[in-house]
C-alpha cells in the first residue's frame, strides 16, 4: 500500500457503452465527486452524468458586449472629445465608419474571455500537479480507453464498496490513485540563488547596454542622424547660415495690434485700459502675472525676485511712482521694456497685457488699502460683467 493519501479509485472500460452504463450506475448510487475520462467527448454523457448546461456563454456574452461598448465609447471619445477632427466630411461620431472596429474588438474580447474563462475559471488550469497525471489510468484514457474515477473525498466513498461496484460493472482494470508526495524546494539553495543573481546581472546588463550603447549604434540612430537642421544649429544650406527662415519683412501675425509708441521713451498720450475688470479678466491677469512677471517682481509685486541674484531685482510695484502711473505707462513698459527689463510684447497679447495691468492695480490696492475698501472692491469686481 502507498503511504500517501488516497485520491480515488479508478476503473477502465473498453467501450463507450460500458462507460455510459457505469457512469449512469455511479450517478444513480448518489456519488457526487466522480468524473469520467474519455479520449474525446462522448455524446450523451452530459445527460447521463446529469450535468447542468455550461454557463460559459454568459462570460462570452458579457465580455463581447463590454468589448463593443469599449470600442464604440473609446472611438467616440478619441474622435469627438480628445482630438476632434473632421475627416472626409463625416461627423465626429461617424457610426457607420466605427462599425468594423467595433465588430473586431467585440470578437476579440469575446474570444479571449471565453478561452481564458474556460481555462482559468472552469478548469483551474494550469494544473500539471493533479494526482491523476502520470498514472497508467491517465495514459489509457488519453489513448483509447474509457475511465471513471470516484474520488476519496466523496461522502459515500468506501474503498471496498467502490471496488466491488467496479467489479460488478466488469471493469477491465481497477486501480487506486494516490496524491503525489509533496515536493518541498528550499529557495535558499545556493544554485537557485546563483541563478537569481545571474538573471539580475544579465537583465540589468542587457538593459544598460541597450539604453546606453545599442540605441546609439547604426541603424538605431538613423532617426537621430537625418538630413535636417536641428533647432538653433547652423545651416549649411542657406547662405545666411540660419536654419530657421524669417518671415517676409512687414509680415504681421494674426490678431497683432500695433502699438504706436513702440520704441519711444514714454508714451505721448498714455492709453487707457479697454478691459472691464471682470472675474475672468482678473483671473487671466493673475495667471499671466504669475507666469511672466512674478519671477522678478515677486508674487505680490514687492520686487522680491525668485531668481536668487541671477538677474537684478526690480523695484517694488507698490512705490509711489508706479502707483501714480496711468495704466498706459505700465502698458508702455510691458511692450517696450525698461532698464534691464526686456519687452514682453511677444509673450503677452494686447488683452493679456491689460489684464495683467488690472491685476497689478488690484495688488497695489490690496497692499495699500483699508479693510473696508477691500470689501468694496471685491463686491465691485464680482458684480462686473463683460461688455
Amino acid at each position, binding site marked *: 500500500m502507498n503511504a500517501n493519501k488516497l485520491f480515488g479509485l479508478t476503473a477502465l472500460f473498453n*467501450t*463507450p*457503452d460500458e462507460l*455510459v*452504463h457505469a457512469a*449512469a450506475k455511479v450517478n444513480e448510487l448518489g456519488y457526487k465527486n466522480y*468524473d*469520467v*475520462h*474519455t*479520449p*474525446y*467527448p*462522448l455524446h450523451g*454523457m*452530459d445527460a*447521463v*452524468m446529469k*450535468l447542468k*448546461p*455550461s454557463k*460559459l*456563454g454568459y462570460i*462570452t456574452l458579457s465580455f463581447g458586449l463590454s468589448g463593443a461598448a469599449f470600442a464604440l465609447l*473609446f*472611438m467616440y471619445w*478619441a*474622435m469627438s472629445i480628445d*482630438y476632434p477632427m473632421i*475627416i472626409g466630411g*463625416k461627423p465626429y461620431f461617424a457610426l457607420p*465608419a*466605427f462599425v*468594423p*472596429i467595433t*465588430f*473586431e*474588438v467585440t*470578437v476579440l474580447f*469575446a*474570444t*479571449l474571455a*471565453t*478561452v481564458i474563462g*474556460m481555462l482559468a475559471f*472552469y*478548469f483551474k*488550469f*494550469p*494544473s*500539471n500537479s*493533479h494526482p491523476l*497525471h502520470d498514472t497508467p489510468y*491517465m*495514459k489509457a*484514457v*488519453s*489513448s*483509447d480507453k474509457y475511465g471513471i474515477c470516484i474520488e476519496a473525498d466523496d461522502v459515500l466513498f468506501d474503498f471496498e464498496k467502490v471496488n466491488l461496484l467496479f467489479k460488478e460493472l466488469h471493469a477491465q482494470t481497477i486501480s487506486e490513485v494516490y496524491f503525489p508526495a509533496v515536493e518541498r524546494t528550499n529557495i535558499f539553495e545556493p544554485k537557485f540563488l546563483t541563478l537569481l543573481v545571474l538573471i539580475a546581472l544579465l537583465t540589468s546588463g542587457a538593459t544598460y547596454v541597450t539604453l546606453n550603447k545599442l540605441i546609439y549604434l547604426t541603424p538605431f540612430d538613423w*532617426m537621430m542622424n537625418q538630413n535636417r537642421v536641428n533647432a538653433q544649429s547652423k545651416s549649411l544650406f542657406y547662405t545666411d547660415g540660419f536654419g530657421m527662415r524669417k518671415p517676409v519683412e512687414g509680415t504681421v501675425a494674426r490678431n497683432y495690434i500695433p502699438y504706436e509708441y513702440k520704441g519711444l521713451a514714454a508714451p505721448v498720450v498714455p492709453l487707457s485700459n479697454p478691459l472691464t475688470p471682470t472675474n475672468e479678466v482678473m483671473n487671466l491677469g493673475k495667471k499671466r502675472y504669475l507666469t511672466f512677471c512674478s519671477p522678478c517682481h515677486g508674487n505680490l509685486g514687492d520686487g522680491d525676485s525668485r531668481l536668487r541674484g541671477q538677474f537684478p531685482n526690480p523695484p517694488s510695484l507698490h512705490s509711489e511712482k508706479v502707483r501714480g502711473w496711468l495704466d498706459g505707462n505700465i502698458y508702455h513698459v510691458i511692450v517696450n521694456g525698461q532698464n534691464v527689463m526686456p519687452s514682453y510684447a511677444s509673450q503677452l497679447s494686447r488683452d493679456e497685457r491689460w489684464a495683467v495691468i488690472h491685476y497689478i492695480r488690484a495688488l497695489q490696492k490690496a497692499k495699500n488699502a483699508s479693510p473696508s475698501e477691500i470689501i468694496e472692491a471685491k463686491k465691485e469686481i464680482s458684480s462686473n460683467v463683460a461688455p
Partner: protein
Amino acid sequence: MNIDYSQELPVIERSITLADIDRLIAKPLDEKPDKKFFIALSITLTLLLIGAVSVTYLFLNGTGVWGLNQPVGWAFDITNFVFWVGIGHAGTLISAVLYLLRQKWRTGIARFAEAMTIFAVMCAGIFPVIHTGRPWLAGYLMPYPNQHGLWVNFTSPLVWDVFAVSTYFTVSLVFWYVGLIPDFGILRDKTASKLKKTIYSIFSLGWRNSHRNWQHYEKAYMLLAGFATPLVLSVHTIVSFDFAVSIIPGWHTTIFPPYFVAGAIFSGFAMVVTVLIFVRKVFDLQEIITVNHLEKMNKIILVTGSMVGYAYGMEFFIAWYSGNPFEQFVFINRAFGPYAWAYWIMVSCNVIIPQLFWFKKIRRTIPAMLVIVILVNVGMWFERFVITVSSLHRDFLPSSWGYFVPSIFDLGTLIGSFGLFFTLVLIFTKTLPVVAMSEIKAVAEGAQPSHNGGKH
C-alpha cells in the same frame, strides 16, 4: 467509382483502432526527420533567404528599389498581402463554418488548414508593414496614448485593416491552440522523452480528458466557431474596403466584399488541397485524409470559382449599366489594354479551368486536381494583381499613364513569402500533430455510445 452520395461517407476509410490513430498521427513527431525533409527544408529556406535579402535591401534603400511608381503606387506589395490573407481564409472556414454545419469530414483537415491560416496571415502581415517604406514606424498603427496626443484615424479603412487582420490572427491562433490542448495531453502521455514530456505538459496545461472539462470545452469550441464565422467574412470584407472605399474607378464597387470573400475561400481551399495532397502521401495519412475529403474541397472550389466568375461578369455589366465612362474605360482597358495578358490568365485559371471539377473523375484524380489547384492559386494571385495594378496604371490624365514592371526585389519578396509559408508548414508537420487526434477519434466507427444507452 460508384459512390452513393445519398449516404454520408465514412470519415476514416479503413477501420483503424483509436490507438493506431494516435500512433499514425504522432509518428512524424517521434521519428527523426529524414533526408527528404531536409531537402524540402533546404529548398524553402533558400526561398526564405531570397526574401530576407530582398527585404533587407529594401530597408536599406527604400521602396524605390521596387518597380512601383506613380501612378501605380500599389503593386506587388498589396497584391501579395491580399493574396496571402485570402489563403488564410480556408482554415477558419473549415474549422468554424463546417463545424457549425456539422460537417464531420472537416476533422481530418481542420488542424492543417488552421495552421495554414496562421502561417498565411503571418506572410500577409509582412507586406503592409514593409510597403509603408518606414516599417519601424508600424507601431503608430496601434491606438496607444502617445506624447503627440494623437489617435489613429478610426474612420480609415487602412486602420480597420490593422484591427481586422490582427484580430483574425489572434482569434485563429487561440482557436488553433484550444484545439491542440487535448492533443498535447495525448502526446504528453505517449512520449518517452523527458524533455518532450515537459514541453507537452506545459502546453497541455494539465489537460485530463475529464468529461466535466469536455462539456465546457465543446461549448467553448462552438462559441469560438460562432465568432470565427462572421470574423472570417469580416476580414476579407475589410480588406476589400481598402479598395472599395476609395474613389478609383475599378476599385469603387459595392460588389467587392462578397467577391473578395468568395475569392478568398476559393484560393484558400486551393492552397489547402495543394499542400494536403503532399502531406497525406508523405505522412501516410491516406486513410484519414481521404480522396472523399479532397473531392468535397474540390466541390467548394468549383462553387466559389463560379461565384468569382459571376463577379467578373457583373463588374463588366455594372460598368456598362452605370453609364460611367471612366468605369467603362477601366474595364475595357482591363480586358484589352496593356494588362490584358494578366486579365486573361486570371479568367482562364479562376473561371474556366475549375469547371473541369464538374467531372467526378477529375475531382477524384490526384494529379489532375493538383494541376488545377495550382493554376487556381496562380489565377487568384493574378486576380489581386489585376485589381490593384490595372485600376491604377491608367490615371485620369493620359499624361500620367504608366506601366508597372516588377523589379527583381518585387519578385524576391514574393518568393520569400512562399519560402516563409512553406518553411513554417514543414516545421509544423514535424512539431505538432497535423490532424486533430482527439477529433478524429470521436468520428471513428464505434466511437460514440450506441443509442440504447449502453444497455446490452
